Structure formats: C-alpha cells, structure tokens
C-alpha cells in the first residue's frame, strides 16, 4: 500500500506542483495517476521514491514513513520504469536487468540467471541477453525496462508513462502483457499516464488530477465513466463514455444462435448450401473462426473451387464468452453478416449473437443502474436533509 498524507510540493518560485494530496493506493493493485501536463502526476510518483522531496506531508509504504528511509536504500526496494526505458547503453541487456541485484551485491551468477528468466517472462528470447540496448527496438527496450524494474522482486513498482513512446500497435501489446504479468505477480503499482484510455484500461483505480496538483477524482474506471465528479473530469474522460463503460459490464450468459460453419478446404458448393442470408462462417480444423464468406455474391461458375483464406471477409471482431457487453456489441456491429461471433475461452466457435439481443441486455442492465442511482440520490438527499 502506498499512502499519501496531505502531501504538498511547492517549488521555491511559488509554483505548486502537488496540492495537499491524500490518496491510498491499495496493495496488489494498479493505481493510475492521470491528468493533463502540469497536473503534478509525475511529481507525485517521484515523491514516492524520494527523487523529489515533498514540501510537506508524509508518504507511507505500508506503515513505513519514506522520509525515514535512506533514499538509495528506499529506491532499491521500488521498481521504476520510465518512458524511454533509460537503459544503460554500455551494459548488455542481461546486465541491465540485473542492475539492482548487482547494487545489492547479490551473487553475480545467480543475478544473471534470474535476469534471463525475467527476460523470458517479459517476452524476450534469451538470444537478446548479450545484446546492447541500441540493438533493440523501442518496444523491446521497454520490455527490458520492465524486467529490470522486476529484478530485485520489489513489492512496489512506479511506472512513468512506460508505454507512451512506442507505436500504438506495440503499445497495446505491451499493455496486454503488462496486465497478464500483473495478474501473475500482484505488485502494488503506481502508474502515470496522460492517456485516459490507458488509465481506464490498466487501472484498478484511477486518480484524475487537474493543473495545480489537485486531485479531481479517485475512483474505479467504471465509476469514472458513469459518474464523473465534475465537469473537468467529465471533459477529460471524454467522448463515448456510455459506450466505453460497457467495457466494464460483463456480458453474462447471452443466448447464442447456432451457426452452420464450414471449414477451410471444403468445397465452395457446400459453403453455399450452408449459407444463411448469403453469408457463411468459416472455421479452421480446430473450429476457430477464420472469417465470413459471402457466397451470395458468387455465381455458379465460381462455386467450383474450395474455401480458401483469401476469399474471407475479416471485418468481424470476436468476443469471448466471458467478455464484456462492449465486446459482444462490437462483434455484432462489426460482423459483415450482422451476426456477432462469440468464442469459447480456448478460441473455438461458440455461437453468434445479433446486435438487438446485445442491446436488450444493455438496456436491461442500464435500467438496473438507473434505479440504483435514483435510490442513491434519494438516500443522499435524505441524509443531507437530516443534517440541514
């Protein structure tokens, strides 16, 4: 747990970077600090490991007052990942990863062996171990940066825009792998970003900060989307809030329709016979969906061949059975046949669902949420009425 107790950072010129911040980042969770530039999010992060000293207030790691720990000692127990990885260009990848164990004077051989395991864990082949950072792509360097932060197995990690400097495709990969890794490790993580989408995707809790270093709202992502505390948060959280909030609503048991799928390699004529409204779903040998085939558009002469991958329309997204309403709705809306493809958790085909069915579910759920909100508001009004 990381606890800020009315922490303020005021610079000699009078600028207030962080204004009496009170926040508790729970153990084993990802707490994201998000806000526009100048909101003090990075300053807050750096006060945790005393790279910046607070002007007033205290920061506790569990029950340890950070001000009472020697900075270098404190920092060796806290993992740190930054935007451009900050790897040491003169050290090999494996030695970069083993930096903190070396600082802690651990056995070099053991530290290197552990570093190799960590590289694998963050998705880098062992062949990278003896390369230098300059030989790696930005995404790979970022992975090494994460491995380095994990090397001494610190319970706490600080991450300062770790995925901001890589291209969107790599960023998404890194984010997904980071979530998977966190699922295994359960570190207490303070994560800084300016990207609200990243905050909502990664955070168990999100602290929205405004310029001047004031905390605007501290809540779960779903709460942030459904009940922004004020106009600033609402504006910062941005468009499509309603749609994005569906990403936190479990789809539950949708009633799936069967679909006569054909496998790759089967004759096109069979596919044409199975088609429903001109479209047929194509799966591979393991019954994993591959795409949709538009048999309605093929004339008799074209039906002589077999089903090959290049004939398929790949427009539809797949939604996992255990996924969210957002994924299910997106699968339905993006499907060329209008029938959203739902898959089992192992990736095999489960059934299809139409957009109207998903919408029914959404509406049913929203009705429940509205009723709850009304009850809450009533209770609040009653409470304030009593105190008045």
């Amino acid at each position, binding site marked *: 747990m990381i606890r800020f107790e009315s922490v303020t950072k005021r610079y000699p010129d009078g600028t207030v970077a962080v204004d009496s911040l009170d926040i508790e980042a729970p153990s084993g969770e990802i707490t994201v600090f998000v806000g526009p530039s100048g909101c003090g999010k990075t300053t807050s992060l750096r006060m945790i*490991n005393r*790279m910046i000293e607070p002007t007033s207030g205290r920061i506790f790691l569990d029950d340890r007052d950070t001000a009472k720990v020697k*900075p*270098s*000692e*404190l*920092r*060796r127990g*806290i993992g*740190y990942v*930054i*935007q*451009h*990885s*900050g*790897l*040491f*260009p*003169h*050290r*090999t990848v494996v030695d970069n990863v083993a*930096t*903190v164990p070396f*600082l802690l004077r651990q056995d070099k051989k053991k530290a290197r062996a552990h570093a190799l395991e960590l590289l694998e864990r963050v998705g880098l082949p062992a062949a990278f171990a003896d*390369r*230098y950072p*300059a*030989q790696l792509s930005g995404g790979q360097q970022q992975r090494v*940066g994460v491995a*380095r932060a994990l090397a001494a197995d610190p319970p706490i990690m*600080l991450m300062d825009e770790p995925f901001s400097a890589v291209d969107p495709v790599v960023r998404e990969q890194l984010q997904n792998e980071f979530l998977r890794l966190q699922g295994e490790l359960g570190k207490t993580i303070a994560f800084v970003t300016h990207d609200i989408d990243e905050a909502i995707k990664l955070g168990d809790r999100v602290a929205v900060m405004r310029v001047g270093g004031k905390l605007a709202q501290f809540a779960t992502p779903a709460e942030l989307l459904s009940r922004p505390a004020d106009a600033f948060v609402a504006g910062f959280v941005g468009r499509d809030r309603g749609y994005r909030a569906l990403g936190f609503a479990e789809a539950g048991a949708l009633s799936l329709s069967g679909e006569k799928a054909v496998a790759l390699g089967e004759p096109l004529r069979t596919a044409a016979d199975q088609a429903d409204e001109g479209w047929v779903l194509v799966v591979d040998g393991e019954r994993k969906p591959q795409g949709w085939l538009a048999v309605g558009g093929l004339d008799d002469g074209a039906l002589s061949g077999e089903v090959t991958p290049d004939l398929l329309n790949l427009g539809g997204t797949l939604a996992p059975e255990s996924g969210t309403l957002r994924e299910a709705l997106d699968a339905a809306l993006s499907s060329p046949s209008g029938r959203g493809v739902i898959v089992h958790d192992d990736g095999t085909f489960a059934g299809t669902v139409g957009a109207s069915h998903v919408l029914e579910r959404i509406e049913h759920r929203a009705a429940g949420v509205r009723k709850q909100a009304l009850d809450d508001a009533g209770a609040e009004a009653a409470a304030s009425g009593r105190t008045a």
Partner: protein
Amino acid sequence: MRVPATTVLATDANSSPWHFWTYFMDHRSDDLRYLWDHVYLSLLPVVVGLIISLPLGFIARRYRWSYPPIISITGLLYTIPSIALFVIVPPLFGLKSLDPKQVPIALTIYSVALLVRVVADGLASVSEETLLAASAMGFGRMRRLLSVELPIAAPVIAAGLRVATVSNVSLVAVAGTIGMDNLGRLFDEGIQLSTPTPYYPPIVLGIVLCVLLALAFDGIIVLGTRLLTPWRRVAR
C-alpha cells in the same frame, strides 16, 4: 651543450634527406634517448591533465552556470604560444630555467585546456533518462558517476585524449629548440649542421620519428577505446 658528433661527418656524408636512416644508425644511442624522453614528455602531461580535468569537467557539467567561465578560461590557455609558455613556466612555478619539470608542466596546462571541455561534454552526452533511471534504481551520486556516467562518456573523452596526445607530440619538439632533450633536438642539430650547405638527415629523422610516435599513440588509444567500449560497435 654537447657538440654533435655529426659535425665531422657533415662534410663527407651524403646530405640527401633520404639518408636519415644512416644518420639514425650512426647516432643510435642519442636518438633512442631522445625518443624515450619524447614518449614520456608526450604522455605524462596527458595523464596528469586528465586527472586535473575530470573534477573540473565534472563541476562544469554539474553546475551549469560554471560551464562558460571554466571552458573559456581553460580554452584561453591553449592560445598562449608554446615557446612563451615554456619560458614563463619556471618563474611561475619557482623552477630554475631548463628544469626537467618545465616542459611537462607547460604541456599539462595545454592538456587541461583541451580535456576539461571533452570531460564536460562527455558527461553531458549521458541521456537524462539514463541518469534518472540510475538514480531511481538506487545508485548513489559517486557510484553513478563511476559506473554509469564515466563509462558512457568514455568515447568522447577518448577522442579528446587522441587530440591532446598527438598535439603534445608536436609541442614537445618545440621544447627541443630551447635545449631540452627530446626529438626536437634533432631539428636543432639539423639547423646547426646546415651551415654553410643544407643538411637534412637529422631534420627528416625528427619528423619521421614524431609522426610514427603520434601514429602509435593514436592507434593505442583507438584500440584501447574499442576494447573498453564494445557497446559502441553495435549496429544502430
């Protein structure tokens, strides 16, 4: 001053510039002594100069306001003509004229003039992210300097060492003309032997040995840098 033994030979020996090898073989012991003196006079000031420049360069980098004055003052030292510096060093440092310390002290001043800037610039070549990451992982200030900043600055500093060493090889020779033993003495002898007719062998020998010495030093520094900074050779 010793009378060069060549005076006798000057009249009958072939005075073609290409006879420097014969000249060398005839005066081997003197010439090898000159060469050795030249080696240590070129190298010692660079080593001492580097030791002085490291803290100065560190200060120029650490306190940004001190960079312009430190760099301009040390840079100005380089504009003092070498012959004047050789002459002015003994009174400034309380030495007798032609004291053996006179030349190394003067050349150390030149080395500092060249090296303070490269140390400061070398340290500045370490990226902010690297420094931030090092501190965040718990490097103390001294440890960060020794095991992160200096190794990364090494290629820049080595480039400065090459310039300082090679320039010292030529500056040492100037000291030969005021009578200090080193390869510069060969030029002095050549001039003295050139009356009434020009006599080139010692002059050419001096040039050849100076160039070879400079090339050897340069090669050693380049090789040493390559061995110490394998990370610089990787493809970018």
